[in-house]
């Protein structure tokens, strides 16, 4: 410790200590001269040796190397600029991808003390749910001693008089704003003092974005009355611009949880113990309490509640905690049997990471080739330096310092590029305003790290070859070309697969008709309808809709196509692991959505244990057998329907299973209406019909084709981004090929001259120049194809209909690559044809 401190003192006062050492040595020589023994040896060298004991020599050398490297780069601006542009693209793509991850996943939400916030979800050995019954949340709030506060949030869509579509409303506990430490922009936020009493006046707090969009940023909005689901409420305030609650995107407005039954007439959210619908729960840890301690305490709290409600609280139920101060991607509600499926965002992040790393690989391989070629031009300089005593290690360090300097410049340019890219994306997608793309320390550290990694990738191998004076050996050069070809090939093929998938998605049907169907969700369960009254309502709806002109059929379903709901089962009894999407429907569902019954029969009233499964389900479970009459988890297969991906449009492995809707399902059913003409004109009539039966109902009416178009746009954007990445890689690879060919032409001018003098034809000369490219390109192509096949295996689960062995995509990508590579190679190769044999032979 002390020694380190002294070392640092030597570093900081280097000038003084150096002078003292010089004095010592000078005095020594004086005395020796007096004694008559003249000393030999170089005084400066001696001083350097003595100084080495301080351990700071490397700083001096680094300074020297950096100055020298800067001079070298400055003297060849063309090379330097090319290198920085390449690195900026390669590093920029990575920094942008990381910056995005950082914004969404790593950086906490802009709330007070995000690290003491925990999100709690229900878990039991046999089942799970993201949402808790209100009463369970309230019980925990009363009895927990490890949590200083409990927050709850229930999001839904309601109708605001004057708004053209349903708005997103979050019902929150009154302590929500105080606990998250946000100050309102205007008026007041919710607070327990005003809003937690039984006779509290109904109020709403507008989000900043909604205040801008709907109220034109009118400061006079506070105190006015708005009508939510027809019920008056006072605008208490407007939230701050950077506040979006505990979700990634901001809702339109917040209102107290206690007012939920007031706005949603008949709602049993606050009294029902079923947990469907329920609330999402967060807790704030008391200081000194760890999440594990809180979980342990809540386990006993929940067990205590179970003694009063033995059926509604599950056996061995616990509330599993996760960090609550971070945004959750896909923060929807889900519940089911077994354990929840694996997080689906991880593979996506992995794919993005792999793609941007490929770009970096292309850039590095490219730059490595350039550095090798430069090593040839610097042969004289290096020989001289070696001759005056620089060792291999010293030369290697010198060359690598140049690479490091380049990498730092590239990192800086890459960060600027990434920032511009992220900001453009944010502006284009109207991201929440608190997502600030300005790089923070994590992004800086990442950019620095990736810069050093890049320097090692592109700098070390060439530096080693150059120092060994082996730069003419072409193995490394060829591997570099091969690596570029492989990496850009992967990117091009993946881009091709995505484009093809998009093409297929737009041209091929998803297995059901989305053009002429309207989904009407009356939200009966939310309004407290029981099975009987819901059936009466739906019968009346059926009659009214049937009377409208232009309506062909009406069906009921628990999972409307692309409607945001899902019910998935991963049964252990299945022959192979599979995601089964379950739908509870009325028999008319198949004809309404035009899903064919291929074998057997449709569901019939009274089919309590009959199921219809999709074709791919039957093929997977009972290959080569007759699926009809097979038993599956106590149900008998009565019919086989065509594949219809009404939820997982993007997952070609998904299979479907249909039950007849039972009485329990009725309150949550959604009506599907098939129109003979265009559905747009009929939608308002359908909505009016649903409303006329019960005025407290605010039906959510959607066109299925609108949801479908939205899904396609996601794939479109993905395909576009990967195509841009692929083009970048292709561009970089072409630059590398041009460089290589130009270099080899200039090196072989003499040989070409001789060949031409002996009468070689133009095409022969070209083939001599280009032949050396064929092997690395071929090897690279093969590697690229293998890599793309592996990567697309993951892709096919995430993106709609990507087939990992689509021959057209592969052929097109390879064709594009070979064509571009040949054309770019011909440009510098043509110089070989213009070689004048006489001049070439006289040269040197």
């Amino acid at each position, binding site marked *: 410790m002390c020694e380190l401190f002294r070392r640092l003192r030597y570093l900081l006062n280097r000038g003084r200590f150096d002078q003292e050492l010089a004095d010592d040595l000078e005095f020594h020589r004086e005395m020796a001269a007096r004694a008559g023994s003249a000393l030999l040896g170089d005084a400066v060298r*001696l001083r350097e040796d003595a100084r080495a004991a301080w351990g700071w020599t490397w700083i001096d050398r680094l300074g020297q190397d950096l100055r020298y490297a800067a001079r070298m780069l400055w003297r060849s601006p063309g090379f330097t600029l090319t290198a920085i542009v390449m690195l900026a693209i390669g590093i920029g793509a990575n920094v942008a991808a990381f910056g995005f991850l950082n914004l969404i996943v790593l950086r906490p939400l802009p709330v007070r003390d995000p690290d003491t916030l925990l999100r709690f979800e229900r878990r039991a050995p046999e089942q799970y749910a993201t949402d808790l019954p209100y009463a369970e949340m309230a019980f925990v709030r009363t009895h927990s001693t490890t949590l200083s506060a409990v927050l709850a949030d229930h999001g839904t869509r309601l109708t605001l008089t004057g708004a053209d579509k349903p708005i997103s409303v979050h019902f929150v506990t009154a302590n929500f704003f105080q606990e998250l430490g946000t100050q309102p922009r205007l008026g007041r936020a919710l607070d327990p003092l005003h809003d937690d009493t039984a006779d509290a006046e109904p109020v709403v707090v507008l989000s900043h974005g909604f205040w801008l969009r709907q109220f034109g940023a009118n400061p006079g909005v506070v105190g006015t009355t708005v009508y939510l689901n027809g019920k008056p409420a006072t605008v208490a305030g407007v939230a701050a611009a950077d506040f979006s609650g505990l979700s990634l995107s901001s809702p339109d407005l917040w209102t107290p949880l206690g007012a939920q039954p007031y706005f949603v007439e008949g709602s049993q959210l606050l009294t029902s113990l079923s947990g469907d619908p329920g609330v999402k729960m967060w807790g704030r840890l008391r200081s000194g309490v760890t999440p594990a301690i809180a979980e342990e305490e809540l386990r006993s709290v929940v067990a205590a509640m179970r003694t009063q409600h033995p059926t509604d609280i599950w056996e061995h139920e616990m509330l599993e905690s996760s960090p609550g101060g971070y945004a959750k991607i896909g923060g929807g509600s889900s519940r089911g049997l077994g354990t929840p499926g694996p997080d689906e965002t991880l593979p996506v992040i992995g794919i993005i990471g792999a793609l941007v790393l490929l770009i970096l690989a292309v850039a590095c391989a490219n730059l490595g080739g350039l550095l090798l070629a430069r090593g040839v031009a610097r042969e004289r300089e290096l020989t001289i330096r070696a001759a005056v005593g620089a060792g291999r290690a010293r030369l290697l360090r010198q060359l690598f310092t140049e690479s490091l300097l380049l990498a730092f410049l590239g990192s800086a340019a890459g960060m600027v590029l990434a920032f511009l890219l992220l900001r453009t994306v944010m502006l284009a997608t109207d991201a929440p305003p608190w997502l600030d793309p300005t790089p923070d320390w994590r992004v800086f550290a990442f950019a620095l790290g990736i810069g050093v990694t890049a320097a090692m990738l592109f700098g070390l191998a060439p530096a080693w070859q150059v120092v060994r004076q082996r730069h003419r050996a072409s193995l490394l050069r060829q591997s570099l070309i091969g690596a570029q070809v492989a990496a850009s090939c992967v990117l091009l093929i993946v881009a091709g697969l995505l484009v093809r998938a998009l093409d297929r998605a737009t041209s091929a049907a998803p297995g059901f008709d989305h053009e002429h169907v309207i989904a009407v969700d009356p939200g009966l369960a939310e309004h407290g309808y029981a099975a009987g009254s819901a059936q009466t309502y739906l019968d009346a709806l059926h009659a009214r809709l049937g009377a409208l002109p232009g309506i062909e059929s009406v069906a009921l379903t628990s999972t409307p196509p692309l409607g945001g709901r899902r019910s998935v089962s991963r049964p252990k009894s299945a022959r192979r692991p599979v995601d089964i999407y379950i739908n509870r429907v009325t028999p008319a569902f198949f004809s309404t959505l035009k899903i064919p019954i291929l074998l057997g029969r449709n569901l019939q009233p009274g089919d309590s244990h009959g199921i219809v499964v999709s074709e791919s389900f039957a093929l997977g479970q009972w290959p080569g057998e007759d699926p009809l009459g097979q038993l599956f988890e106590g149900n008998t297969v009565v019919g086989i329907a065509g594949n219809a991906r009404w939820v997982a449009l993007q997952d070609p492995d998904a299979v479907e299973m249909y039950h007849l809707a039972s009485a329990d399902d009725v309150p949550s059913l959604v009506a599907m209406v098939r129109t003979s003409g265009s559905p747009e004109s009929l939608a308002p009539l359908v909505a009016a019909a649903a409303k006329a039966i019960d005025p407290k109902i605010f039906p959510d009416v959607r066109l299925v084709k609108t949801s479908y178009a939205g899904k396609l746009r996601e794939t479109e954007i993905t395909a576009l981004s990967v195509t841009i990445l692929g083009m970048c890689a292709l561009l970089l690879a072409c630059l590398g090929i041009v460089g290589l060919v130009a270099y080899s032409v200039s090196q072989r001018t003499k040989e070409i001259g001789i060949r031409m003098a002996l009468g070689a034809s133009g095409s022969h000369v070209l083939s001599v120049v280009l032949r050396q490219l064929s092997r690395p390109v071929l090897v690279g192509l093969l590697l690229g194809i293998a890599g793309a096949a592996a990567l697309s295996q993951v892709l096919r689960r995430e993106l709609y209909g990507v087939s990992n062995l689509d021959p057209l995509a592969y052929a097109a990508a390879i064709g594009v690559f070979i064509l571009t590579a040949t054309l770019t190679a011909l440009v510098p190769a043509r110089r070989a044809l213009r070689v004048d044999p006489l001049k070439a032979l006289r040269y040197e």
Partner: protein
Amino acid sequence: MPIANMPKTEMPSGALVLLILRVLHSGPLHGYAIAQRIHVLSSEVLRVEEGSLYPALQRILLKGWVKSEWGTSETNRKVRFYRLTPAGRKQLDAELSDYDRVNEAIKSVLKTA
């Protein structure tokens, strides 16, 4: 052949440190005096070159075994004198006992083997 002209044997740097610490034990000295003292005390067998003396001194300074201070040389020049610190004294004791032990061991091997 006079002893002083005998070919110089490389002194292991550990031994040099021990010798420097030992000669400083009797009082502060400047660099040249350290070399001289070792030369004289070893009956002119050991010769400390400036090429090994000064790096060793820098290492000892870093370890904190000696401190440098300004003094005046016999030629009336302002030079650095090196003084043993308490830590240096402790180090010297440790190295001396180490040396004795190893020396005894080597001797006994030489006698019996």
